[in-house]
């Protein structure tokens, strides 16, 4: 147990703070996001992530938002387990036809007002997979999309920028 505490103490806080930033871009992004959320959303927005057919690349980078470097929760953004608790749907992948109804139902289950963010090239325009007998292509072919975040996959910083774009609408 002592070793554990020692490791925690010697690691310190690696989160790239906005008071003493290691990364200026993350700092300015974070401040802007926090300001918006505090003003318009009473301090927090809840995100439900839906993989509608992605290769899992985008999920890896969305996961990274929760690591101690980005720690997106400090800006008031948190991921929830049910669409019924969500303000925002973060949708990845070309929408596979086998996931089409599931995505529609998730969308319906999300209370209004709600926003949809299409994450990654496949979600934005169909990407490497496009439209086929098995794929509906872009998310906007299935549900209305408010903001798109390109990249294959988008980096955590690009994801933060995209979310800020949503808040500034």
């Amino acid at each position, binding site marked *: 147990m002592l070793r554990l505490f020692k490791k925690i103490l010697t690691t310190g806080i690696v989160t790239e703070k906005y008071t003493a930033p290691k990364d200026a871009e993350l700092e300015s992004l974070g401040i802007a996001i926090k300001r918006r959320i505090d003003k318009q959303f009473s301090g927090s927005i809840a995100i439900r992530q839906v993989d509608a057919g*992605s290769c899992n690349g985008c999920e890896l980078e969305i996961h990274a938002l929760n690591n*101690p470097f980005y720690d997106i929760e400090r800006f008031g953004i948190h991921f929830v387990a049910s*669409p019924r608790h969500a303000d925002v749907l973060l949708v990845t992948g070309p929408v596979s036809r086998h*996931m089409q109804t599931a995505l529609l139902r998730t969308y319906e289950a999300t209370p209004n007002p709600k926003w949809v963010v299409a994450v990654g090239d496949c979600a934005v325009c169909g990407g490497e997979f496009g439209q*086929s007998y*098995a794929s509906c292509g872009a998310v906007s072919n299935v549900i209305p999309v408010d903001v798109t975040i390109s990249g294959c996959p988008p980096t955590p910083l690009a994801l933060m920028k995209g979310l800020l774009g949503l808040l500034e609408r």
Partner: protein
Amino acid sequence: MNWTSTFLTQQVNWLDAEISKPIGEYIGVTRHSPLHSVAVWQIEDKHWQQFAVTAKADNVRWVAGWAEHADRQFIVNAKFEKNGVYVVLRTVINVVKPELPTQATVYPAANRSERHSQDMFGIKFIGHPDNRRWTRHQAWDKHQYPLRKDFPAHGEPAEITPPDMHYDFIKGHGAGVYEIPVGPVHAGIIEPGHFRFLAVGELILNLEERLGYVHKGIEKIAEGRTPEGLARLAGRISGDTTVSHCWAACMAMEQAAEVTVPRRALFIRGILAERERIANHLGDMGAICNDVAFTFAQMQFTRLRELWLRTNATVFGHRLLMDVIIPAGVSRDVSEASCALLQQDIVWLRKELTSIMTAIDLNSSLEDRLYTAGYLSPEIAAAFGTVGYVGRASGQDFDVRRDATYPPYDQVNFKVALEDQGDIASRFWIRHKEIMASLKLIEQFIKLLPEGDITTEWLTPAIDNEGLGIVDGFRGEIISYVRFAADNKIARFYPRDPSILNWPALEKLVLNNIVPDFPVCNKSLNGSYSGNDL
């Protein structure tokens, strides 16, 4: 002498009950195999199952199965392995009455693969123990077969594809047995799939997986692509295995085109693959701890993973290393400065892991959750032909890098981690051992990195040329089959992700565990949904 020559001399009496003949007399062995590295054994369709029986008795492992539509016939392939020597078994059946005796009664691993061929080609496997649809949900009709050449890639989809109701799940009977349906949309940030539990109280009586939700038609849209296009697509079969899938596909195409990849490029590929393995193992180890609410480890491992990915971005221009491997080489060279950076990473990660693993090792609450949970016996692991860390944590001593070695792994020394404890703790610790081995590998690759070009000229392969890529991804053995059409275009592409062999093992290892332990059981196996569904 490898097993294949003794196998061919085995006495069998498939044809006539009275006369016993060596198996070799029933098989057309392609001496000059178009697949350079692997023998192709041509066999009559009626012997398909009998061959499997003989192979099984000889402890040969079933590796992969795929079919192909060519004019008025289907070419059906099954791939086997023993002691690192592979054989492709091939038969040809008529399109009009496409039937073949099943191998799934002999090899449970062949079960879902045959159901995939059934859904995609309309091949009927006679005697199959479970011929429910697998890859097909409701996106195409029962009498349509997407991988037949006359099926257009755009298909005839409905405006809204209906949900896949009425799949015939196994039912439980008796007082107190209840069903828990989970998915396709899960609670976390993970891929979609459906799990149907039968439970009594908290205890899992049975688990049935229903996958196929992220079927994107990869095999179909691969057809007609250029080698560059196929490499990009292969890099997106499973995002976490982008390097290894891309490598396997390129290896197959390079074989078909008879292109010799520069040595420097091969060593860089090795560095990429091992860095990918380490990044994923770090992520998995954190996630396993997180699933038993041990946040300390989750935070530590995600921290290490993030720093590791940042070096990827600095040295190779992409955090997940996508599209660095290209046909006939690699797209990024590593400078002296980059090598120094990669070496620093090794020293740093070793130091970090030493302190984290000692802290974790002494933690009794973590031990309490991970030891004995999710036990996969070596017998079941062998029966399903499980590979990678799942197999190696249950005594399956196989690693493509060592047993069917390919450059640059033939130039270096390394130890393959092996455990026989078979529980989640074992699948956790074996990842740690594999990270340590990979660090040593990267060290050697950097030291031995040859001078020279990183790419060479691409040669257009002759029509019908085939290739078979076999590499070891972080989940284990990846198989990639490629056949070329005219004009440098792909005629057939089949990638077999290791998840295809490992997923069925999950149904077994969760038995008699409690439902709340399912997430950690699942994470310890970490199958790819996308790689499975294609």
